[in-house]
């Protein structure tokens, strides 16, 4: 308990922690403010305007086609004829049902549709902060010799490292819960002012709550992995280096190689697909080079669906491997 208290104090005494959390909050505020500014609420007035705009566009396009048809007829037999199709009837007039007024509506923030992306944004940003703060929290301790000092006081190695990790995870749980609540509240208000909160049924709220929970899990795994890697390498830069290396190798190198090799569903080997699968519950990848023929639908691309359970197992596996390795080396390594 005393160790946990000391570690919490240490975490918040560090300027690095304060700076990064402040940075995250500033970025979040910027996202919220710009969303507020670029959206507006829509009522009958805006709908009428959008409908008028759609109608006007339709009329402009109809006139243009008629003019073109006339030019086409006139050009027949002259040198300009090759600029037009041989049969001028191919220039068909636009149809009104193709001019949906919704395309002419100003951007508006529909909470139910738009908030999930915002929840993902929050989770991704906090995950990044957790990773870096987690790495630096233990990396700087190793690097500065503080870890050795602490072990002279508390010679239980696993307990010391475990308490540090626990401190980090509990702290980020609290931060994520508080920020998620604020974030949800802020966008709910924003939707009331610059959009709508219609159709927020209990079911819709539940799915948003579950999504935020998955976001929390993402934040915690990111923090633990940053912590574990930095502890393994006994340096903050180790975690960052490994991650940048992994990103380059997987995201760019492996992606390119697989693409060249024409491997099916390349995206399934890359990180973003899994992140989306985790946050949005599933992602469907399509292979446009394939043809799954059916007499009804014609040629359909083959699909692969990644579900949140698959992504969750991957996250859990990553957590277990990295934290397990960090604990294992902590138990047996010589501290010099």
């Amino acid at each position: 308990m005393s160790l946990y208290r000391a570690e919490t104090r240490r975490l918040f005494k560090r300027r690095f922690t304060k700076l990064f959390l402040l940075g995250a909050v500033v970025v979040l505020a910027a996202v919220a403010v710009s969303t507020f500014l670029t959206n507006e609420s829509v009522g009958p007035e805006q709908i009428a305007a959008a409908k008028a705009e759609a109608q006007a566009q339709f009329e402009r396009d109809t006139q243009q086609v008629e003019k073109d048809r006339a030019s086409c007829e006139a050009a027949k037999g002259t040198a300009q004829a090759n600029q037009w199709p041989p049969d001028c009837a191919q220039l068909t007039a636009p149809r009104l049902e193709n001019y949906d007024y919704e395309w002419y509506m100003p951007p508006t923030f529909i909470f139910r549709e738009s908030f999930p992306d915002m929840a993902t944004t929050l989770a991704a940003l906090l995950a990044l902060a957790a990773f870096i703060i987690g790495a630096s929290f233990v990396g700087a301790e190793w690097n500065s010799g503080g870890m050795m000092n602490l072990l002279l006081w508390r010679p239980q190695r696993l307990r010391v490292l475990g308490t540090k990790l626990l401190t980090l995870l509990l702290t980020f749980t609290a931060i994520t819960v508080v920020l998620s609540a604020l974030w949800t509240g802020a966008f709910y208000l924003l939707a009331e002012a610059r959009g709508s909160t219609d159709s927020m049924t209990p079911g819709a709220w539940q799915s948003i709550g579950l999504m935020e929970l998955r976001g929390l899990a993402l934040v915690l795994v990111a923090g633990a992995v940053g912590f574990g890697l930095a502890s393994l390498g006994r340096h903050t830069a180790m975690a960052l280096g490994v991650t940048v290396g992994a990103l380059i190798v997987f995201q760019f190198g492996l992606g390119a190689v697989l693409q060249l090799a024409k491997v099916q569903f390349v995206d399934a080997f890359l990180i973003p697909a899994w992140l989306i699968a985790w946050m949005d519950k599933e992602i469907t990848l399509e292979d446009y080079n394939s043809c799954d023929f059916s007499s009804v639908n014609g040629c359909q691309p083959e699909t692969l669906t990644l579900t949140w359970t698959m992504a969750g197992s991957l996250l859990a596996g990553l957590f277990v491997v990295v934290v397990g390795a960090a604990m294992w080396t902590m138990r047996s390594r010589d501290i010099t």
Partner: protein
Amino acid sequence: MTAVLEIVGLRKTYRSRKGTRKALDGFDMTVDAGQVHGFLGPNGSGKTTTLRTLLGLIKPNGGRMAIFGKEVPRHLAETAGLVGAIVESPQFFGNFSAQDTLSLLADAGNVRRQRVTEVLELVGLRDRGKERVKTYSLGMKQRLAVASALLKEPKLLILDEPANGLDPGGIREMRSLMRNLAASGMTVVLSSHILGEIQLICDEVTIIAAGRRVASGSVASVLATAGGGKVRVRLEPGVDTRGAVELLRANGAQVTVEPDHFTVGNAGNPAQITRILAERQIYVSELSPVSADLESVFLELTGTAPVEGQNRQVDQTAAVGGWGQ
């Protein structure tokens, strides 16, 4: 007397990609309660390795260690509260102040915060305690390290080269601090290569060379046994001194020639000298033991005395052994 610290047959081999290095090779050490105990050895002889192993930072390959009669590292958690230690050059997180560093340690070890102020005062950092450690000089960091070791009011204080980086005033203060601590019942183990220091404040010493104990006991007894080997020899006037020296050297003696006499450095048994010389009808007029200081004893025991025309490398020790014993 009860042994506060007991090490028997400690072995440690470092393994790395570049190969293995035997740092400790059956090292023994005993420290009794209430002593200031000097732990002497040349660079790379295994002092820090010994202390690290004792404190559970590295795993030994063999041997037995006990602190206050409790086997370590198995009972380290129980003894940790009684042992204050600094190992090697002190290292702290540079962006925290001394005050923060110590109060975090105090929290982690359930020590009352008031103690932080006390130890800062004790090591002379009271007025600088709020500054970041990054801005400290080496000596100030060393003082902070001692403060952190004293924080939990230990019964056994282990300091690895605490005089490193201290100014003469600081060394003297450290010396009187240690005397006071020992007087208050604390046992202090002090690793150092500054021999004058050890001679001044230590009750007993252990000397280590190449991972093995080469001498131990009270300073006086170590001086007597080791220094007893050095004798001054004066011959009758007019005798061929050079011939006598060559004769002794041929028999393996380490002879240093002075203007009117010579000294034999490794004479375990001075009678040998008279016997060898007398066989050639050379008679000595004076044969007296030279009282050695700790430094020459150290150099002799650890085999690290400089040899003219050679650059001694670390880990290089001359074959140690008496002559004529």
